[in-house]
């Protein structure tokens, strides 16, 4: 490998990049733009769940129970259907997620020390929201029930749970979303940056010129990678600063470790994109492959949205082949847990393997054509 030739190759790629100004601007600004939008827009915090109340009891006791739903902050009462018949339509049209039905005998049963049934109907279609709503409603009713039967007497249950949340004490969903997003967006950007670079040379006919020069294929691949690695590092730095400054996400771990891991990840993801590009030789096909192999897996199989531990074993095995998986783990762990290499060495080794495999695959795919 000759350093001068390698740098010349990198320079050539940079010049070519600069000519496509619009793409270049997108490459630099897209990640931080997306982080800003998503970090602001999305959250998991389930608040103000729309609910309806059918109060057939119309008593002080039932009004007290309803008031507790309202003042909890989790629910917003938006409808008071007159009869059971109206409930159906509210759920069907998605106007409410939950219906509280208090039967006529509620107050009498409660006062008499009998068990007083109360019904809750959930729109189960969105299972996640429904589960959280169910938990909140259960807690409100249980508390109300205990106070109602004890009638002001103090009674301590023999057991209580005291829960503490680590790493993200307030359960702020933004703290988990922003570090994960950095990883997902970078996987996507990385594939996008390099997937077309070699296919483009084939389509434009400049590959033959490149083949005619004395440049070695290792120099071509590394030289082409260098400018993109620089762009990628810049993107990550900008995205992290945005996360810290704009959203106040804590960065508890070592910045150097994060940088090192980022470099490894970028090498793997970028060289993998280049491999696709060298292997298929047309930009259309490279686009499609990059989209399908990198885009959705990075979003859905990386553990960013859906936790890997709940997937079937076979699919869990598949996620080991998604580089974003390791990077999502790494960013979340360094940002929120503040752990070091002792907890992340598995991810580090995996990313080294990916980077090595990516680069050698790209060189290999290249070799056949140049010979």
């Amino acid at each position, binding site marked *: 490998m000759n350093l001068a030739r390698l740098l010349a190759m990198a320079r050539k790629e940079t010049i070519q990049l600069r000519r496509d100004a619009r793409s270049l601007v*997108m490459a630099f600004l897209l990640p931080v733009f997306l982080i800003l939008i998503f970090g602001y827009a999305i959250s998991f915090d389930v608040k103000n769940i729309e609910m309806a109340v059918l109060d057939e009891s119309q008593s002080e006791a039932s009004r007290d129970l309803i008031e507790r739903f309202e003042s909890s902050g989790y629910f917003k009462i938006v409808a008071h259907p007159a009869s059971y018949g109206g409930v159906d339509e509210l*759920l069907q049209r998605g106007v409410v997620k939950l219906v509280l039905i208090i039967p006529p005998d509620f107050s009498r049963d409660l006062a008499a020390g*009998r068990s007083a049934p109360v019904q809750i*109907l959930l729109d189960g279609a969105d299972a996640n929201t429904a589960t959280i709503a169910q938990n909140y409603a259960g807690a409100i009713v249980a508390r109300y029930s205990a106070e109602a039967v004890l009638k002001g007497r103090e009674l301590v249950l023999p057991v209580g749970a005291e*829960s503490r949340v680590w790493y993200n004490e307030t359960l702020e969903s933004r703290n988990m979303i922003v570090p994960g997003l950095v990883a997902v967006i970078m996987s996507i950007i990385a594939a*996008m940056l390099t997937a077309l670079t070699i296919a483009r040379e084939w*389509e434009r006919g400049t590959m033959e010129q490149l083949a005619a020069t004395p440049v070695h294929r290792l120099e071509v691949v590394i030289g082409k990678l260098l400018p993109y690695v620089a762009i990628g590092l810049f993107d990550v730095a900008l995205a992290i600063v945005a996360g810290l400054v704009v959203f106040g996400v804590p960065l508890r771990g070592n910045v150097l470790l994060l940088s090192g891991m980022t470099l490894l990840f970028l090498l793997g993801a970028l060289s993998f994109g280049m491999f696709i590009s060298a292997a298929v030789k047309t930009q259309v096909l490279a686009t499609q492959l990059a989209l399908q192999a990198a*885009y959705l897996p990075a979003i859905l199989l990386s553990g960013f949205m859906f936790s890997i531990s709940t997937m079937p074993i076979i699919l869990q095995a598949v996620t080991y082949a998604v580089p974003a998986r390791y990077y999502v783990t790494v960013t979340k762990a360094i940002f929120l847990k503040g752990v070091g290499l002792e907890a992340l060495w598995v991810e580090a080794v995996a990313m080294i393997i990916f980077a090595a495999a990516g680069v050698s695959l790209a060189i290999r795919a290249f070799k056949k054509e140049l010979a």
Partner: protein
Amino acid sequence: MSISMLRVRELLKKELRQMLRDPKMRGVLFVAPIIQLVAFGYAVNTDIRDTATFVIDHDRTAISRELLEAFESTGYFEVVASSDRPADLVRALDHGDATVGIEIPAGFARDVSAGRGAQVQVILDGTDSNAATVAQGYAGQIVQQYGLKRATAARTFPAGGVDLRTRAWYNPELESRVYNVPAVIGVLILLMSLLLTSMSVVREREMGTLDQLTVSPLSATELMLGKTLPPMLAAFVILFLITAVAVLWFGIPMRGSNLVLLPAAFLYIVSGLSFGLLISTISKTQQEAFMSMFLFLLPAIILSGFFYPISSMPRVFQWLTLLNPLRHFLEVVRAVFLKGAGITDLWRQYAALTIMAAGTLWLATVRFRRTVAM
């Protein structure tokens, strides 16, 4: 402007052949979406089951074991390791080997028997705030029920109280998959629609074949038909294939009618294809088209209600999502699949999709004319 059926037919033949010529391309078009739906169908699961739980039992009595048993028997928690050193718990959570820790203090059984209110510590890994919220709720309920059971048995707690009966409609088991798999269909269709058209014009421009087309006797309308009809055909084939997989493989209940779904799918596909064509005519290079598609697709997925509830977004973004065809299509698909909704329930979504399809088609046509006329 005249449309010659003969010319259109020849053009369609050429475009279809070009699209399907490459076996790799055929694989990408028709096999990959099926594989993706199968893989993602298993992935899109937010149910909390068998959460890896680390236990520190300082008490080691029958009562502490009974409580732990109560945790495990719900199926929500699975004890993966235990120890009596708190440092091991820290390590397990730091390394991600467990996401929940339960710590039972010494003297627990004594306090429980005396009715003194013994406290169990539940420690949650908040890096996944959604899972932590749900697990926290479950843990609280389990401990509370266990406490109530003991108090009632010891007769220190009066009988009666509120008996909460919960029923979930449309999805009694509260399985997240039935909600999310139809959404994956929507995402895949959008992705394929964009893929199919976003490269078409810009590629011809980059390769210089666009000039040949403009000097040919084909009118702009004919060219546009040639560029959109074959992709539409392909998109519908993909839609049928993956819907079949969702229903037959994943057993997603189809409670509504296909006739309600189809017009929405048509409008949605037209929006996707037109938007792709628009990108293609605006972009100077394929790289640029590729990036524009990425730029559009990610917000379309994240701000669609696929995963992050729209109702938790700030008001401005809730309005913005109204411009997202995926949002409306997801509402239709989910309502038709799970609730058996009819057209009258969904007229808003239909209206929005119609406006979007017409709008993007018009924009794409205008741009396309200008590009071809050059």
